[in-house]
């Protein structure tokens, strides 16, 4: 690998978004050589996504940038994959293969060449089996990989990936890492950005840490030692590859069963996604639900919440043995409260406080209460909102717009709305996505305080370290069936 001629260079690069008071990036220097991979890590709001866009040359329309951004030649191409899986797809195609072939078509290449390039990219990323799948049926991780496959067909000189692994399972990450190695071996350069150190950043040659838009340190020729927990913690980065920390002491189990699941099967379309699940969850207990993308974790949680129909012989019992299987979803909420993957589905108000005040109905099912009861219920709700905001660490953001929060805080806002219902069991779907070290700590504290007060948590996650730290048990979902680990 020749270090003489960088493929891309930023020098003393600063950028301020239009309407912002403070710069998102200040005086950043960065050089990328052919065949090299650089990870840019930092906490939320450190400017990692902005730096990704700067490298991709996408900042000019959004504000004022100063400093130098230069590429090896005017023909140097940079491809960037953003962090929102939903927004990475073009809306012009129906299937995975069509989406992956689209970039070639937009360049006017012959159709057969576009399809061949698409198939090669899909194969390289290990998702060739998805080629004919409609895009609407893909999980977040599968969408990201599909979008990346499309970018790879263009054979860019530099590939910029913003939090590429956040929705990927362990195996998909390994496949992506292998694919990026092949890309680099062919002379491509890779820039990864994110808030977590994982298999992909571990595969990089260098790591640049960012803090409040400024470079805060750089590591070369990485070793496990250099990636020490303390160092990552110091830079506010969550170490997803780290050894599980010691679990805090928990109060003795009360052994009261809060959730009992028997013969639980779920069919979607003609496919049996969940098969004969048996599960028990007791007071004070957390179970981590692990499994590959598409293994049925989200389906299981949604079905338990009553948002998807389960098989007619499925048994579901709540606290005190109450039969929940026949209870409609909106009436299960005081027993089981579900938090989905996408906070955008829940959030609609203009402030965090307003969101929480409105999140759950005051009257049963949303019926209007008589005036006097309504006033009393509102007063009670306001007190409760203050309480759950404090629990979720959102008190200082009460008057902020939810979309001005970091993605992790938005998720915390949705978790807080679930706490309003005072459920016995929390069902959390991928709450760790894109969290930095502080966000992970906040989440752990939230889960632990909930279980300490007698609740129980069933949480689906790809983060094996966090699962080991937070879970009393880990269960693996494989092709719709449960396998208990510990």
């Amino acid at each position, binding site marked *: 690998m020749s270090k003489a001629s960088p493929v891309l260079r930023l020098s003393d690069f600063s950028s301020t978004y239009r309407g912002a008071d403070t710069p998102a990036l200040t005086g950043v220097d960065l050089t990328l050589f052919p065949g090299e991979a650089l990870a840019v890590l930092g906490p939320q709001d450190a400017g990692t996504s902005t730096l990704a866009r700067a490298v991709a040359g996408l900042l000019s329309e959004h504000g004022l940038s100063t400093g130098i951004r230069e590429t090896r030649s005017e023909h140097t191409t940079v491809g960037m994959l953003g962090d929102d899986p939903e927004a990475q797809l*073009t809306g012009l195609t129906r299937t995975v293969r069509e989406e992956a072939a689209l970039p070639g078509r937009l*360049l006017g290449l012959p159709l057969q060449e576009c399809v061949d390039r698409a198939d090669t990219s899909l194969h390289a990323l290990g998702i060739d089996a998805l080629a004919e799948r409609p895009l609407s049926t893909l999980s977040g991780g599968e969408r990201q990989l599909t979008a990346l496959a499309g970018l790879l067909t263009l054979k860019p000189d530099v590939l910029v990936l913003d939090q590429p692994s956040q929705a990927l399972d362990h195996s998909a990450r390994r496949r992506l890492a292998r694919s990026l190695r092949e890309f680099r071996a062919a002379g491509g350069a890779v820039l990864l950005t994110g808030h977590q150190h994982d298999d992909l950043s571990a595969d990089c040659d260098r790591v640049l840490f960012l803090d409040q838009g400024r470079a805060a340190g750089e590591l070369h020729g990485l070793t496990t030692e250099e990636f020490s927990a303390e160092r990552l913690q110091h830079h506010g980065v969550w170490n997803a590859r780290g050894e599980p920390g010691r679990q805090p002491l928990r109060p003795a189990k009360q052994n009261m069963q809060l959730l009992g699941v028997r013969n639980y099967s779920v069919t979607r379309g003609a496919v049996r996604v969940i098969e004969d699940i048996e599960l028990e969850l007791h007071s004070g207990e957390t179970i981590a639900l692990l499994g590959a993308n598409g293994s049925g974790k989200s389906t299981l949680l949604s079905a338990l919440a009553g948002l998807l129909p389960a098989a007619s012989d499925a048994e579901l019992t709540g606290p005190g043995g109450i039969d929940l299987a026949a209870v409609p979803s*909106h009436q299960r909420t005081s027993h089981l409260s579900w938090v989905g993957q996408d906070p955008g589905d829940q959030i609609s108000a203009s402030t965090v406080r307003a969101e929480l005040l409105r999140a759950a109905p005051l009257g049963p099912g949303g019926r209007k209460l008589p005036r006097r009861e309504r006033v009393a219920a509102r007063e009670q709700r306001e007190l409760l909102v203050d309480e759950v905001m404090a629990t979720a660490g959102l008190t200082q953001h009460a008057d902020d717009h939810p979309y001005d929060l970091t993605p992790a805080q938005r998720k915390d806002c949705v978790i807080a709305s679930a706490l309003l219902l005072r459920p016995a069991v929390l069902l959390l779907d991928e709450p760790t996505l894109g969290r930095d070290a502080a966000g992970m700590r906040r989440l752990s504290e939230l889960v632990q305080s909930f279980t300490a007060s007698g609740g129980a948590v069933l949480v689906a996650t790809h983060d094996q370290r966090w699962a080991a730290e937070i879970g009393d048990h880990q269960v693996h979902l494989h092709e719709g069936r449960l396998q208990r680990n510990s």
Partner: protein
Amino acid sequence: MRLHPATELVLLGCALLLVYGVPSPVIPAAVLLCTVAGAAVSPRVRFRSWLLTVVVLAGPMLIMVGIIQGLFYPGEQAQVLAEFGPAAVTVEGLALAIQLWLRVAAMVAVCALFAFGSDPSRAFDGLLALRLPLSLAYVCAAALSLIPLAQHRVRSALAARRARGWDTSRFLVRLRLLTGILAGLLVSAITQLDQRHDALNQRGFGQALRPTPAQFYPQGATQSGLRWGAFVGSLVLVGASLAGVLPLPSATDLLEAFNV
């Protein structure tokens, strides 16, 4: 054999031109009947979904024009069939209501047939083949994918609210939640706009004026002849109708023929 998407678009345009260009209920009725037959036999269109769309979009219009034009036609020379206090059923009002509703129903039916039977990729290729500018073709084609996307997002938002205790099976509850859900959809769409724009640019959008079509479509004299034939034929029919040489009955003629 399936038509070239450009031919489908031309046929759609011609159908709309005829429906609104010829002042006779025969044309929209004929288009409506052809569309029903097309939706029934098409392997790509789910007849039930298509029918539901037509009923939901054109049904309220039937009630509105029935009440406004059928009962409250303002003309003083109108031939009254029956009177109910201030309201009166008149031949002219009924004729206008029939004509209006058939036009709207035919338009909705034929557009829904196109939307259900096509996909953004086909529409994009068809619009480009008709020489539309790239950006306009993208906006029109992407709009086709917006409908299922919006449906999906609304379903997810309703599920999320059900999980907070809202009984979304009740119409009044859904109505109360509607503003919030739509506001949420709008905000999330706006926040995704930047990334979508970037995603398109990153994939080379605009680098070639004529991107490669997504598949090999039927080409040749048949497709071209069908397009030009439909276009010229529609213009001739509308022109003849405007010149008064097209012997098609008006709605009033039809009502009189049925002794109304």
